[in-house]
């Protein structure tokens, strides 16, 4: 059934990292003793009223602007009614027909540099549910559940896309880059693992060329991009199989089991939902002053996607470099500082390669480590002027990580400077003489044996030689080149 194409849209819930909840002055909390961050409002005591957190509105606007959304001149809140123990009012205050951010578009970039355009349907403000833990109850045995309202009422922005995605891989690319953008905006922690960013995918398949949409299923709440990609893949496969065998896809909510790779249906016995949306009478419209919106637009930081283009086009980085460097706003700042002092491409290589590799063992990020961007630039400089070899530079870096000293100081203290060319030639001559068989192989054109000579030389010099220089000297000694 290769003539079926998948059609995918996503809904992303982003918890805003504001100081207080969406409708009350409690600080949302995620680790404290249960029910220690509540008030009558977020416990929905009789008689309480919601008051909108202005900072949540500001952040929703920032998100909307970054997604190119039309900002509603006057948006309103609605009540979405349903009973569940994590929703104390039994209605969620959300937005319905007039969200704060309307249509927009987000352009992601695939690894091959091609553009992935995804239409944004809307982005609206709402409140998060409380934490419901199944089991742990006493009254109804182990089956009971317990509710903690510490995080109940945390501000959320829900971003809904058009069904513009055509593969699981694109879906993952879009979500990763959307997350990156949100991180740059500083509006949310965007942690999939901790649930501050959650994505649901609406998946359907249809014959290629068809303009109508097939019956969709909703793939719920996956806590990593990897699982999400696999889940979407599995769901597409499942739907293709159903249709191939002459069946029909049921509209339902499904779940991906990472352990088995299986898709399971979530709720089927639940009666159809009727949320009875109606305008929230306890709140008044949000009508952002156009001057405020304009100000937020001008204050917007450089976002990762355009930045990525600039890194490639203007600073000579590869797509891959750029993707890694734009992984977080902190890393960008770190790189930019180093790149201002030394060759950007080399800085990028060292930062994304050796530096991160060495720090990973310590569980540190570059900006948290002893290595400053100026250190990186200095190291790149030492390499460029031939003061240290690449293997030695790695040791220098280890030294800087350890001590926080300047690279030049580390080179000095540890004697890691490049060897004198005469000394190196002498050592290589000795090695060639001691290994006539290998020398003959080289003469016979078996280039693989070059590795042996480089290895031997490195062993003898303690890594203070540049491998390329070693190769040249070996050739000279053996072949007379």
């Amino acid at each position, binding site marked *: 059934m290769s003539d079926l194409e998948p059609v995918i849209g996503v809904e992303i819930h982003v918890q805003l990292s504001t100081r207080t909840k969406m409708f009350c*002055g409690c600080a949302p909390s995620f680790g404290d003793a*249960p*029910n220690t961050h*509540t008030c009558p409002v977020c416990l929905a005591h009789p008689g309480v009223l919601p008051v909108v957190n202005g900072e949540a509105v500001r952040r929703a606007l920032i998100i909307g602007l970054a997604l190119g959304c039309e900002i509603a001149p006057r948006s309103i809140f609605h009540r979405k009614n349903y009973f569940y123990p994590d929703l104390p009012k039994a209605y969620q205050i959300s937005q319905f027909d007039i969200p704060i951010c309307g249509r927009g578009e987000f352009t992601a970039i695939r690894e091959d540099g091609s553009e992935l355009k995804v239409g944004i349907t809307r982005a609206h403000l709402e409140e998060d549910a409380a934490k419901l*833990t199944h089991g742990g109850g006493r009254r109804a*045995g182990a089956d009971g559940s317990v509710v903690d309202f510490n995080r109940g009422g945390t501000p959320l922005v829900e971003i809904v896309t058009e069904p513009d995605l055509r593969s699981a891989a694109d879906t993952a690319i879009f979500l990763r880059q959307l997350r990156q953008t949100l991180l740059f905006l500083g509006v949310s922690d965007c942690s999939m693992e901790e649930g501050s960013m959650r994505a649901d995918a609406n998946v359907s398949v249809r014959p290629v060329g068809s303009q109508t949409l097939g019956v969709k299923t909703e793939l719920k709440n996956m806590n990593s991009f990897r699982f999400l990609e696999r889940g979407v893949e599995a769901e597409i496969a499942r739907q293709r199989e159903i249709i191939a065998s002459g069946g029909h896809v049921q509209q339902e909510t499904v779940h991906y089991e990472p352990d088995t790779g299986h898709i399971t249906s979530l709720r089927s016995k639940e009666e159809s939902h009727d949320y009875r949306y109606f305008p929230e009478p306890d709140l008044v419209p949000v009508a952002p002053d156009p001057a405020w919106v304009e100000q937020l637009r001008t204050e917007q930081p450089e976002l990762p996607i355009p930045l990525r283009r600039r890194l490639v086009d203007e600073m000579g980085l590869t797509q891959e470099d750029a993707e890694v460097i734009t992984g977080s706003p902190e890393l960008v700042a770190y790189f930019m500082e180093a790149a201002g002092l030394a060759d950007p491409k080399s800085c990028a290589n060292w930062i994304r390669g050796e530096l991160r590799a060495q720090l990973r063992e310590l569980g540190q990020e570059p900006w948290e480590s002893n290595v400053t961007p100026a250190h990186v630039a200095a190291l790149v400089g030492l390499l460029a002027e031939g003061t240290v070899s690449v293997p030695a530079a790695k040791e220098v870096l280890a030294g800087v990580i350890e001590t926080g000293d300047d690279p030049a100081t580390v080179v000095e203290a540890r004697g890691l400077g490049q060897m004198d060319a005469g000394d190196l030639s002498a050592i290589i001559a000795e090695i060639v003489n001691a290994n006539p068989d290998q020398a003959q192989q080289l003469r016979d054109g078996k280039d693989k044996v070059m590795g042996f000579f480089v290895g031997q030389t490195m062993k003898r010099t303690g890594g203070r030689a540049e491998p390329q220089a070693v190769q040249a000297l070996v050739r000279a000694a053996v072949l007379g080149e």
Partner: protein
Amino acid sequence: MIDDTTVRHVARLARLRLDDAEEQVMREELSGILEHIDAIRAMDLDGVPPTTHVIELENVLRADEPRPGLSQEDALREARAVVDGSFEVPRMD
């Protein structure tokens, strides 16, 4: 007007357990009330916008400043079932 199925559906949406007798009375009473209310379904409302609010306020926003809330003891004090600082609810099925 309003039938038993509708009454049962609405009662379920509203999470109200009604016994058979209550259901019967509810159907009759709601039907009676709806007969009066149906007057508004006959009115000409073309071009009339809805009113959600009679006041013309906009942008009532709160500063993002934490306020002291309730102690855990106060948060839980009116609850009938509490386990280790949390509200307890029966199983979900």
